[in-house]
């Protein structure tokens, strides 16, 4: 029972002042009192490889969209450390539910350059069978649940997934990524509260990048960010500098341990900034200043991590150039192949609605094929391969 007071007094939004966990300064040295997580050289360089791959991929694909080669793209510029660093602290049996700006986590898990390309070009090799817009990745083999556009829906799903893992007694957790904007959805409330009460070992990782499209976080919520809500749900909560890969890694490692040991959720709020446009459909000059962007560009998480690698003597300029060049080359080569691959056959239009197509769907496909045969020029991408 809570203690009593006898004069009415309000608790205000600043009652909690949640600190930010940081390890690395921008120059690659450690904060006083901070300690490095235990990363061996190979693994540390693999993470750098992931970061750079994603940065190059994003750049190339934004370009491809501008050239009209793909209909849409969405970059993670400036936020790479939050997804790579957190994914690195997990085990491969841990399930990932992403929002859409976590290509870093997927790359870390081993999604190949061809797999990225095949999805973005919706070709017949896309694991998602060309049914969703670019960047809606998913991969069962890598425990990466397919991305869905409606925001926040993955949050209670992740809680349920983790509950299922717990019922099976697995040594596994589920991580759920979402933006600070998505955290305003009702599903956020439902998911965090259910995870808390039902004790699901879920790591909720909010990427607070300051914006939801044009809406600054100051018009998204008051109070002390998303982290302060965790306390209200009785969830162990931690705020971390999202541009500090080492801090994100250490925080996620601690969260995973906590979640497994207590069979309970953890909330991490990773503070970062979306350096680029929201997506290729967006132009941020309409709603924020160049100065603000420049301020954050100085906090580039990839540079910060590179400085650390350099400090350790694990990295040099030559390797840097070679790495960028090699990723550029691989990505471009893969892109060119992916865009030539045909789209999925028309039969795929009715598959996977159900486990097996219903008679109605089979009938609809039959009629559709007959129609395509009549007007082959109208449907050039499928008409040539109706019976193949």
């Amino acid at each position: 029972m809570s203690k009593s007071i006898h004069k009415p007094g309000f608790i205000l939004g600043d009652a909690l002042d949640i600190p930010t966990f940081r390890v690395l300064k921008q120059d690659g040295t450690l904060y006083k009192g901070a300690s490095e997580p235990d990363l061996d050289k190979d693994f540390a360089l693999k993470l750098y490889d992931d970061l750079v791959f994603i940065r190059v991929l994003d750049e190339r694909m934004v370009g491809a969209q501008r050239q009209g080669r793909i209909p849409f793209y969405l970059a993670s510029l400036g936020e790479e450390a939050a997804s790579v660093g957190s994914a690195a602290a997990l085990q491969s049996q841990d399930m990932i539910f992403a929002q859409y700006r976590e290509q870093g986590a997927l790359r870390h898990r081993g999604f190949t350059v061809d797999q990225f390309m095949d999805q973005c070009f919706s070709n017949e090799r896309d694991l998602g069978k060309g049914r969703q817009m670019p960047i809606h990745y998913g991969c069962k083999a890598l425990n990466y649940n397919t991305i869905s556009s409606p925001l926040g829906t993955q949050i209670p799903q992740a809680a349920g997934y983790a509950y299922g893992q717990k019922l099976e007694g697995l040594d596994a957790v589920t991580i759920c990524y979402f933006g600070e904007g998505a955290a305003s959805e009702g599903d956020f409330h439902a998911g965090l509260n259910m995870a808390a009460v039902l004790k699901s070992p879920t790591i909720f990782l909010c990427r607070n990048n300051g914006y939801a499209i044009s809406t600054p976080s100051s018009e998204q919520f008051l109070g002390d960010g998303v982290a302060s809500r965790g306390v209200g749900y009785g969830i162990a909560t931690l705020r971390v500098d999202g541009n500090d890969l080492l801090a994100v890694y250490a925080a996620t490692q601690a969260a995973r341990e906590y979640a497994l040991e207590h069979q309970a959720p953890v909330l991490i709020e990773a503070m970062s900034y979306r350096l680029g446009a929201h997506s290729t459909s967006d132009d941020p000059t309409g709603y924020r200043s160049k100065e603000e962007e420049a301020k954050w560009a100085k906090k580039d998480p990839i540079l910060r991590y590179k400085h650390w690698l350099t400090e350790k003597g694990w990295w040099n300029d030559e390797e840097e150039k070679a790495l960028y060049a090699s990723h550029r080359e691989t990505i471009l080569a893969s892109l060119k192949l992916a865009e030539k691959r045909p789209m999925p056959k028309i039969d795929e239009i009715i598959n996977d609605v159900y486990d097996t197509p219903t008679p109605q769907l089979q009938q609809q496909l039959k009629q559709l094929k007959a129609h395509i045969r009549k007007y082959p020029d109208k449907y050039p991408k499928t008409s040539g391969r109706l019976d193949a």
Partner: protein
Amino acid sequence: MSQMNLLQSINNALDTAMAADDKVVCFGEDVGHFGGVFRATSHLQEKYGRGRCFNTPLTEQGIIGFANGMASQGHKPVAEIQFGDYIFPAFDQIVNETAKFRYRSGNEFNVGGLTIRTPYGGGIRGGHYHSQSPEAYFAHTPGLKIVVPRNPHQAKGLLLASIRDDNPVIFFEPKRLYRASVGDVPEEDYELPIGVAEVVREGKDVTLLAWGAQMEIISEAAVMAEKDGIDCEVIDLRSILPWDIDTVVASTQKTGRLIVSHEAPITNGFGAEIAATVQEQAFLYLEAPIMRVCGIDVPFPLSHETEYMPDATKVYEAIKASVNY
């Protein structure tokens, strides 16, 4: 065989499913210790533990979101929505997530294990928010299956089939019949087919089609019509999605007349889809327009419930109108 009411048969089906497969898990508001406000999940927590039968916080969107996640993990959640009227906060999770989970992922992931149980329908003096029949809201959504039983025997067989079907199923339970409908139910495990209608009475003059609690009503109307020498064929659709077009079309081609009845408001109810499809597929056989005897286009009213309901006299009048067309 034992005598069971509809609730007991549902409870028995859940018990059977949980005993046979430890991936089956039941949850929802008040579902745990208390066994649900209608007691459909009575004693399941005692038998299978709090891990597999539990209360959730009061959030329908959370319940279905959580269930989607569990199903994608490989479990078979049976999520209860306390009243069909309260399923709408979960509409996004059902229509945008559940229904599209397999398709959007190219079958990398699916929530085929999910079953959503919810009581629906009027007749309990429940007014706007304890009486709705929301099946048509979901019938426009590829990827879902929708099942409605009419009596205890059907309920057990269809619920077991729904839980085991590798697609998400919404299972609407006619709550007016929970205690009112009593019948013989086999104690053993059995399934009835999803997507298959049942001709419960053969006839040659008019086809009457309904599902769930409305089956009582059209059967009563068939008896009334019999006295006038009108021989009705009575069909229980059983599944709304996918629905058994062939059986309904064949019957209509035979009788030349079709009357569909449901409690939900007429406009864009599932009767609309049936009429639209059958008029196309049985066009040359129709001797009268397909008629719909349904709720009128108002929120479900409390004090005028009797007047609102598509009762047997209304169906009977439609039968006569059809025959005399």
